[in-house]
């Protein structure tokens, strides 16, 4: 039995939204948790953040980055089925009243998490502040996919300043801290900037939680592929995270493991697939 794709839509030239019918996951999912899916029998297991899980459907944001994300984009359409869909995985974030809750994101999964968490945090009575960074105005998502509707304050930044504020979320967060507007901050997206965020908030003692993306296989604590050093101890991002106290993560190791482990194999798989798409006249 597969899991039917119920919606699919471009978010930007490189990111897209996909919605999958998976009632067993949707009913149990909470912000902070992720899913693992497989496209087809020969596919790899892909961990993915969640934007929304409602009415038996799970909506995710995906970047066209490697073979699997390209294949999902080019060969799977509404009505098609995914081979496997597992979740929810990982620990949920504790939803309670914290005061001013900030979520900062600068990449596809982070943007999904931004909306998902702030929606729950707002419902719990917090003052929510969302900061979302995109490359440029062409890469900004349509408004309904931003965290605007669930944020009391929403800051959109682009790296080149072609839309919103010029700069990165780090710049905005710095200002928010200086204005004493941050009681707790969550963040998702590129690991390099999450590491910088941890350094930015550390001197202020602001509780800082980051989604630590790592390469996974099963996503259930079975293989240790996603291990990170947390407070000097080995933890598994899939089971103990994926959201961790950013001040306790060994970011250098986390970045190395996430970026370099299968880089040659992934490059080759992508090249082969792009060649295939060209031969078929798809691109």
């Amino acid at each position: 039995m597969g899991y039917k794709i119920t919606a699919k839509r471009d978010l930007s030239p490189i990111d897209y939204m996909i919605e999958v019918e998976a009632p067993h996951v949707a009913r149990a999912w909470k912000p902070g948790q992720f899913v693992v899916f497989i496209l087809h029998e020969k596919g790899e297991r892909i961990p993915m953040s969640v934007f929304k899980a409602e009415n038996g459907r799970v909506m995710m944001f995906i970047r066209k980055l490697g073979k699997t994300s390209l294949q999902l984009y080019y060969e799977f359409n509404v009505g098609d089925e995914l081979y496997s869909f597992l979740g929810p995985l990982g620990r949920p974030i504790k939803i309670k009243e914290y005061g001013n809750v900030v979520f900062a994101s600068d990449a596809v999964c982070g943007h999904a998490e931004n909306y998902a968490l702030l929606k729950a945090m707002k419902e719990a009575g917090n003052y929510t502040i969302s900061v979302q960074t995109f490359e440029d105005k062409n890469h900004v998502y349509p408004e309904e996919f931003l965290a605007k509707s669930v944020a009391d304050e929403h800051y959109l930044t682009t790296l080149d300043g072609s839309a919103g504020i010029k700069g990165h979320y780090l710049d905005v967060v710095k200002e928010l801290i200086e204005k004493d507007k941050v009681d707790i901050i969550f963040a998702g997206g590129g690991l390099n900037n999450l590491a910088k965020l941890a350094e930015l908030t550390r001197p202020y003692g602001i509780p800082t939680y980051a989604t630590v993306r790592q390469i996974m296989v099963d996503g259930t604590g079975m293989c240790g592929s996603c291990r990170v050093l947390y407070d000097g101890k080995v933890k598994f991002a899939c089971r103990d995270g994926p959201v961790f106290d950013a001040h306790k993560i060994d970011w250098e190791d986390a970045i190395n493991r996430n970026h370099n482990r299968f880089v040659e194999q992934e490059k080759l798989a992508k090249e082969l697939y792009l060649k295939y798409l060209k031969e078929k006249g798809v691109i």
Partner: protein
Amino acid sequence: MPKLIKERVPTAERPVEERVKDFKEVNLGYTWELALKEAERCLQCPKDYAPCIKGCPVHIDIPGFIGALRKYRDDPNKAVREALRIIWNDNTLPAITGRVCPQEEQCEGVCVVGKVGDPINIGKLERFVADYAREHGIDEELLCEFAEKCDGTKGKVAVVGAGPAGLTCAGELAKMGYKVTIYEALHKPGGVLVYGIPEFRLPKEILDYELKKLEKLGVEIKTDHLIGKTLTIQELLEEYDAVFIGTGAGTPKLLDIPGILLDRIYSANEFLTRINLMKAYKVPEYDTPIAVGRKVIVIGGGNTAMDAARSALRLGAEVTIAYRRGREDMSARIEEIKHAEEEGVKFMFFVQPVEFLGENGKVKAVKFEKMKPLNEKDSRGKRKIVGTGEYVTVEADTVIIAIGLEPNKIILEESGFEVNPDGTIKVDENLMTSIPGVFAGGDAIRGEATVILAMGDGKKAAKAIDEYIRKKKNN
């Protein structure tokens, strides 16, 4: 009385130079003629004495099934049918246990013939019966006899985990007339049989066949369900009359030494899952990557270490197994050690890793302390060892850690089971956990044991669950 034949009838194996190039099964098993010849060597000890029956964790009537092969020698189909019927009384997955049981520590280890010559090759005979039956449709016929009773009317049971314990428990309950649903977290059922044990030791088509048989018994398998996350134990209890937990020992132990986060250091679970479950050795036909260098060190001395070493070898690497005790202390099956040696895996003994050295984030060497044995044993009966203060550094561009597993905590966190200090689930003599109606077996209660013990638990739990449900429904 016929003369005792001391030597085993050998089984055919694929030549080394051929088999190291692929992942296909190494041992080819017996033909009917050879199986019969090996069966003739059995002394047919009386059932109440036979050491082999006592040595078997699930007490298969071994002289009985071997005797059946001899009794109906003129009709191989009948011989195998009767032999299988006898095996099935105690073990429904003989094609698997015949391949993966540590027979030398169990039935074969205590065989009377073994005192004067080679013990009877019970494992290969068991495998022969199962394989012959499968290839000739004999087990299908036998299954139909059982399947008639599988009407699913006696109650509903949920089984968590589709590994050896869960599959056995499900099969037994289905045969008793229960409607059974197995919940499996991965996308394929089988547990360690599908993600852990390589194709060259247990072809996946054998597992697939066993799963189809379960389906015929009316067992439903729901993959992509991680109990504790997708559904809780409490939710299962609301829907089912009882629950069986067979979640295994799913979390790899890693070494608490510097450098553990370096790239190309795998747990054996990750390495083998990528290869066995995800078929990374078939890239680019399959999508899951694996990166193996030219010099691989596997740390450990069990079956998993042998499986990882021989898999790495098949991916073109030079492989050394580093074990902290001596050769005779390794827990792997003798056949696996022999196969690993034949295939060119090297061994280092009495070395304990103390640090992984790296360069650019990747492992480049392992620093070991040389160990020496003491004349005393630890609580598990293994030789104690101590460090010598001498160190040796060995170059490696890939390391696989195969030092064991511990129970996966996910299911424990959400459900409130009482657990033992080692993290295993606490059960009573009927395998019931601290939550009434929830039973457990296999590595989830044992820490790390064998496929056959897990199957034994599955069977025992099925009986206990049947009693529990009947009692509950009578009240």
